[in-house]
């Protein structure tokens, strides 16, 4: 962002103010995530930087909270992590299947009532989570799925499908339908065409929608708080309880692991987005 040499002073000043504001905002966005890292290695029980940490004294750092997270007595994190992964994986699979099918239908130009159906399918994303939680809880209680993994998985499929529908519909908007017609004219049946032609082309969209669904499920706490019994506690629920009662450094160890996980997800999402754009011929 070099300024041309003829720029007047006042615009030059304004430009530097603008850069300063942007720097501040970026710092504001990203810095809080980096506070957690060092504190999770704190040797003491307090959530402040000790004198030793400020002086980079090796004795002030330790892995005790990570050990506590994994081996601690009456430790809820193991069960919570297992539950979280099981629920998120099944919810993602469910969301991908239902969402992709729906997106295929919605992208057809023959689809009747497109507007209202799209609005209905997207609605779980727009309706405040607390209301979704209440409604889903009423349903699950009625059919006897409250406090079961199945109930929570269904709830997360509800919350996750809108993301799959949106990303796959977006991928399909740049989709050249003549390739499927070509396949059909060469004697391929619709299922074969879908598996061999359509799916590989829209796969980046499907996976990136799936990532959204996974993260939504993995991070969701409001609905789970309504539905979960003691056996279905998830990582977010444990964090919520922990943060409300007392902030222990073990939570920071968990949080660090979650940040690493989200970094991995971010990288895969970015790679997928680029691949998808390349496939759709959008070169920038």
């Amino acid at each position, binding site marked *: 962002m070099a300024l041309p040499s003829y720029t007047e002073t006042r*615009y030059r000043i304004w430009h530097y103010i*603008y850069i300063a504001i*942007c720097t501040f*905002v*970026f710092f*504001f*966005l*990203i810095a*809080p*995530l980096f*506070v*957690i890292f060092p504190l999770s290695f704190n040797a003491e029980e307090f959530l*402040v930087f000790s004198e030793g940490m400020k002086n980079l004294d090796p004795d002030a750092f330790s892995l005790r909270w990570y050990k506590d997270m994994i081996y601690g007595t009456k430790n809820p994190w193991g069960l919570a992590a297992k539950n979280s992964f099981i629920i998120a994986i099944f919810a993602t699979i469910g969301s991908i299947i*239902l969402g992709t*099918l*729906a997106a*295929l*239908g919605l992208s057809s130009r*023959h*689809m*009747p009532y497109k507007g209202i*159906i*799209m609005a*209905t*399918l*997207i609605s*779980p994303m*727009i*309706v*405040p*989570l*607390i*209301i979704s939680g*209440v*409604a889903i809880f009423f*349903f699950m209680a009625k059919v006897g799925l409250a406090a079961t993994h199945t109930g929570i998985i269904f709830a997360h*499929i*509800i919350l996750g*499908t809108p993301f799959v529908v*949106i*990303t796959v*519909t977006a991928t399909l908007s740049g989709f050249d339908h003549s390739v499927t017609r070509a396949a059909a004219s060469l004697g391929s049946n619709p299922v074969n065409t879908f598996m061999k032609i359509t799916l590989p082309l829209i796969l980046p969209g499907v996976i*990136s929608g799936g990532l*959204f669904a996974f993260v939504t499920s993995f*991070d969701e*706490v*409001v609905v789970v708080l309504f539905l979960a019994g003691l056996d279905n506690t998830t990582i*977010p629920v444990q*964090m*919520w309880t922990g*943060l409300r009662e007392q*902030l222990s450094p073990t*939570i920071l160890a968990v*949080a660090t692991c979650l*940040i690493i996980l*989200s*970094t991995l997800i971010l990288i895969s*999402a*970015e790679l997928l987005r680029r691949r998808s754009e390349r496939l759709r011929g959008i070169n*920038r």
Partner: protein
Amino acid sequence: MSSETKILTTDGVPLEVSLKKAEKRNKIKAFLLVAPLLLFLLITYIFPIGEMFTRSIDDRMVTNMLPKTFASMEKWDGKELPPEEVYRSFYEDYKILAEKKEHGKLGQRLNKEKNGFNSILKRLFRKVKRNQIDETLSIKEQINKIHRNFTKVEYWQAIKRTAPPYTMNKYLKGMDMYLDEDGNIAQVSEDRRIHRILWLRTLEIALFVTIFCFLMGYPIAHLLATLPMKYSNLLMICVLLPFWTSLLVRTASWMILLQQQGLVNDFFVMIGLVANDSRPEMMYNKVGTYVAMTQILLPFMVLPLYSVMKTISPSLMRAGKSLGGTPFVAFWKVYFPLTIPGIGAGCLLVFILAIGYYITPALVGGASGTLISNQIAFHMKQTLDWSFASAMGLMLLTGVLVIYWIYNKLVGVDNIKLG
């Protein structure tokens, strides 16, 4: 040849008919693809939301508990004390309830309608339990002797008021109003108007968070859209990493930063803004809520703004300047109007998300951090007044749907972009 010659397909069917058939088949095919998800959502999600509505207006409890009373009350005009027949059927209904031990619920419900009802019903219960009421004599006289309040017509009117199977009471309660004895809408006394405070606070926080997000999001979205790709991709990580990071992790980090011995306060002491012994409390009040929620929702503002700004050609600004506009004028007259769709999308998205938030305010907001969502959760889990929770939820939902509708008109749901 007639002028109405129809083009036929090879099977001899007119082309028009054949095309229509194909069109219909395609429609069904498309619909069948959407059907599984649509059915799934309708059953598990949309209908339960509808059920919330019936639950919120359902008032059949008393009706079911006192069936004979209401049957005999139909003939009673409600101006003077009801006739013997009403007393007798009320006594019979009550006796059944007392045997089933459900009389307590009736007392509580009727006490809401008319203060003092519960205590006189308890007296009646004692008499019924000891079989001290002689069914061969006038029940009216015997009941009236139990307590003088039974001789007051207002108490019988209160029963009659609960007759309709549906009520708007829960909605009125959500707005700190109630139906008084004459059936008029009245406000609760000033010191008990808690819900209105919550609604206003929810709106206020959602509004200010939206404004803060806009003020911070606009400059960086602009920077991201104008920088060369290799730099902007790097900076985009600053937006996307928080976006992908767990909400609770981000809330936890703000709890660490904002505490009294936290880094933000350390910094303020270091630059001499505050004295070490008078560090301000930045958490468990509105400051904490605003700071944390703004950071958490900021990506939802930046991403729609960025995707709109990316499409604006830089030559437009150059054209504006070359036609004599100063950079400020060119920005205000050319660039800014072109970004309005993005502003609308971002602001509405952030506002909708903020208005239903409750995890972050509950953790960093302290006593002043309770929003309407917390109140709904409280009634769902603690007081178990599910019909009231449903009523408040639907009031909130109505508000959000209005905004969603505007959003749809302005930007269209299918234009939502993710990442």
